[in-house]
């Protein structure tokens, strides 16, 4: 595919058509923070940490760089006071769920986020969907999924599938930015999976 030229943080960058702004930035060595993005998964656009400012026809707007396709002559800024302010708030909102997450603590340092800014929110899961999407898109197993909707949405292992598949896979575990996934798995395992015969 033909290349598209755009400008990121003042640098001229070429990227193949169909690439995302995040892809183009990474290729040029420009780091944009991400949380819900994974190279092998379809763009999701949930955490919004990767927001960048686009300038086109004199208008500025923020978009999620992990889901926004490159366009010719796009002018992109990956940092500004506004972007930093928004990333700081996002991290603070996430810290209300998972104050001990290593990845979030790292981001908190970078953006000066206060882990006690907001009242604690229930549940460690930050709904990045990495586990669910990885299992569905890469493993095609759907052993873990979301249940309920909106603010009450939760991840849940499907015991019939998980008991068969997860013990030998666990590929999603390292993807989770919090410790929730493993905890949830351990719980389901204890409650629902019969111990394999060898351990008896």
């Amino acid at each position, binding site marked *: 595919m033909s290349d598209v030229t755009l400008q990121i943080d003042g640098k001229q960058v070429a990227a193949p058509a169909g690439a995302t702004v995040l892809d183009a930035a990474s290729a040029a060595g420009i780091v944009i923070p991400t949380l819900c993005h994974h190279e092998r998964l379809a763009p999701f*656009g949930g955490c919004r940490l990767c927001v960048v400012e686009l300038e086109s026809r004199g208008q500025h707007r923020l978009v999620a760089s992990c889901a926004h*396709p490159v366009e010719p002559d796009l002018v992109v800024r990956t940092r500004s006071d506004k972007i930093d*302010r928004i990333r700081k708030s*996002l991290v603070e*909102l996430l810290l209300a769920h998972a104050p001990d997450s290593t990845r979030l603590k790292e981001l908190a340092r970078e953006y000066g986020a206060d882990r006690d800014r907001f009242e604690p929110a229930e549940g460690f899961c*930050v709904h990045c969907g990495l586990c669910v999407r990885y299992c569905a898109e890469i493993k095609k197993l759907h052993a873990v999924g979301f249940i309920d909707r909106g603010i009450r949405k939760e991840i849940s292992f499907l015991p019939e599938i998980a008991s068969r598949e997860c013990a030998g896979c666990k590929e999603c575990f390292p993807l989770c930015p919090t410790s929730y996934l493993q905890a949830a798995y351990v719980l389901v395992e204890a409650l629902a999976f019969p111990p394999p015969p060898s351990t008896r």
Partner: protein
Amino acid sequence: MSRVEQRLTSRDALEQAIRTAASRRDPKKRTISTCGGTGCLACEATDVITAFRDELEKQGLTAEVEFRSTGCHGFCEKGPIVVVDPEETCYLQVTPKDVPEIVSQTIRAGKVIDRLLYVDPLTGAKSVRESDIPFYKNQKRIVFGPNRKIDPQRIEDYLAIGGYRALAKALFDLSPDEIVAEVKASKLRGRGGAGFPTGVKWEFTQKAPGDTKYLVVNCDEGDPGAYMDRSLMEGNPHSVIEGVLIGAVAVGSHEGYVYVRQEYPLAVKNLGIAIEQAEELGLLGKDILGSGFEFHLKVHRGAGAFVCGEETALLMSLEGRPGEPRPRPPYPAVRGLWGKPTNINNVETWANVPLIINEGSAAFASIGTETSKGTKIFSLVGKIANTGLVEVPMGIPLRDVIFKIGGGIPGGRKFKAMQTGGPSGGCLPEALLDLPVGFDELTKVGSMMGSGGMIVMDDATCMVDVARYFVDFLTEESCGKCVPCREGLRQMHRILTRITQGKGRQDDLAALEQLSETAVEASLCALGKTAPNPFLSTLRYFRDEYEAHINEKRCPALSCKALISYYIDPARCRACMICLKKCPTQAIDGGKKRIHVIDQAKCTNCGTCLEVCPAKFDAVRKLSGVPVPPPPPDDQRTIAGKANEP
């Protein structure tokens, strides 16, 4: 009336059918139109309709009198509504018992029945004709008006008012490009929320590469209290179908879907009947009107979440996937339903299209403001005398909608704010009432057109609590996919709740503003992007109320329960003992000839005493932000003279 049953295989055949249908309608013939819309059906309209059919039969008038059960007339609050033509006599709140009298008096003897007429609550003046009622008089009902003229279950009725003529024009007189140009020139903008220029959107889909293209009608209508799309779909489904067909010719689509909210059974039914009848007549399906053009329309019943009205979520839901928005671009015009170019418009948008093609873009564009053309249907509710669906020309001042059409604020109260645009719209103060209604006009002042909700609030409304209420609704409706909306709204709701409970902190407003910026700028879809509007607009126009709550623990509207106290004014209490008996927590101390006193420790702020204290005594007060005065000393609590009388 006998049905037109033959397939219409040419434009001439359509013209013939229109002439036949129209000729069966003698304008001098007595016609009774009874509203059979959902609102009226909720108050006995079915019985009224049956009673009319029986009575006309009984009095042998079925041939002489045309009877029609129609869709919503808009003034649902006063339903069931009956209009007798040609005199246009309008009867409100008709019951089955009134029917024999209407038939013998109005139909036979030509007399008006006074007690069924509209009475102006302010002047006491009565209106006989529908168009003399202030509620209707100040409207411009070009899209919604035909509802009264047709029985939505009879395609002949739609043909009788020239229905499907615009389709014929689109098929035989105009090229697809000319149709798009016409819609562009009309400057019609989407009525579903974002106000995107319809013609421009059609052009995107038309130009998008691909052979298969879909059209979608958005009839999800999730705004609580809004029902204009339902009423159009129930009352005039053919106008929507005709609009879609014209769009199909323009963009080159052969298949469309109507996504109807699950809770709209009558809309689904009437739409289904309309599609069937249109298919029978060759107005839908293969070789439409002998032109060779083919288009199929299917109905899909939606699962009902508010966010499913958002176009990308709606398409997901149509595909049978969870109704969550996805990032745009790609826009549906390029990659929509099943990956194909898809043009999605709101019900009201589609219903405007035949009008534009029939009357021409110039006529349409002659109504409205520079950037907002035509009319808009609003659902006018809240603290207002006349509630209902109103269609007004763009550019009309808000003040006229509230006072001329809506009849002002009832109960001797004062206007305080008007919320436009649905749950994520903004609240506008009195000072902005001369603002002309329009997309950009409303956005500029921190509100929006949305799909056309208008909620009027009086001076007893607390604006902080209003913001809390809408943010609560939106938090519940967030699909949960993105952080600024799901987490941000959750925290905003917590903070707003805290403020209304008198636990607000000095840094709360800054936190709310920061969360608002995050949601507006960084949310994935327009739900999150607009959700802070109720907060931002109330902060902009009613900041003093926030400050009173936070700094003085005072609710200026005397509405927030945690911030008010009930108090009996010793100078006014006449010891009638009514409140004492009614207080559910026995918090009132009193007795014969003894001034009553509320024990603040026992009082739960239920407000019963205020409600029951006789107006002539008017002794109970609400206080906020001030200490409750101590009760009079015991020896001064006896009322001299006769108790019970002022």
